[in-house]
């Protein structure tokens, strides 16, 4: 896998998600991603950014344009230094939420992307990596 481009943005305030979405849109259009997939990755990113803001007071996102074989895609890494997730399995279940939300954030995001990985240590923070392939 080759990384064609890499950029980092910080998500500190709610309004920071807007430039992030615009940036994603730009990259997605550049690699020729379909509109449905563009919408999916932007929605997924929006969910993950909200999680960071809500549970960890913000963090940062790395946006990478990647290429594997003939396929191009976008890989997003959300990194925060919040409280971490105690029970990842539970957090990935539909309808489970420690806050007041619907509990769709993580499980819903997982359905919208091609690849999903989460790494969390209680007291240290959480790293969520999602990849959306152009045709995936």
């Amino acid at each position, binding site marked *: 896998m080759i990384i064609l481009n890499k950029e980092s943005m910080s998500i500190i305030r709610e309004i920071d998600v807007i430039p992030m979405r615009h940036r994603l849109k730009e990259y997605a259009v550049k690699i020729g991603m379909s509109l449905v997939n563009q*919408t999916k990755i932007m929605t997924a990113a929006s969910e993950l950014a909200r999680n960071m803001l809500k549970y960890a007071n913000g963090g940062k996102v790395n946006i990478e344009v990647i290429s594997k074989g003939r396929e191009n895609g976008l890989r997003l890494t959300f990194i925060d230094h919040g409280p971490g997730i105690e029970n990842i399995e539970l957090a990935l279940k539909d309808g489970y939420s420690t806050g007041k939300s619907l509990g769709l954030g993580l499980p*819903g995001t997982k359905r919208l992307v091609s690849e999903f990985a989460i790494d969390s240590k209680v007291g240290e923070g959480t790293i969520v990596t999602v990849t959306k392939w152009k045709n995936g």
Partner: protein
Amino acid sequence: MEKIPILRMGDLLLVTIQVDLYDRLAETLEADLVQMINKASAKGVLIDISSVSIIDSFMGRIIGNIATMSKILDAETIVVGMQPAVAITLVELGLPLNGVLSALNVEKGMELLRKRVSTKENNHMQRRRGPQHDHS
């Protein structure tokens, strides 16, 4: 602070969302709309989301809330112009927006809204005239 304008057309309210939504803005719209329904004794609300390119779980929930709240206040809500990619993403996310009336575009939405508002009024009138009707 940024606000989404609410237009009044007789006993109907019209909202066209032309900006990028973020959480605070959606929450403000929810509060403003409910206030406005009450103040204007509105019977119907039409929300045009044709230029909204992403709706995630939070904004979806707000749309659902608006529909539920306006129903309690005796007003109908219709969401019009959802982009196909947004509809696909919402369903995959796990938020099918049950209970929210929708129409393809503003014109059809207005038609539907007027029809529903007038049938409701007729029903009210008939109920009031009810007993006399039975005798004749």
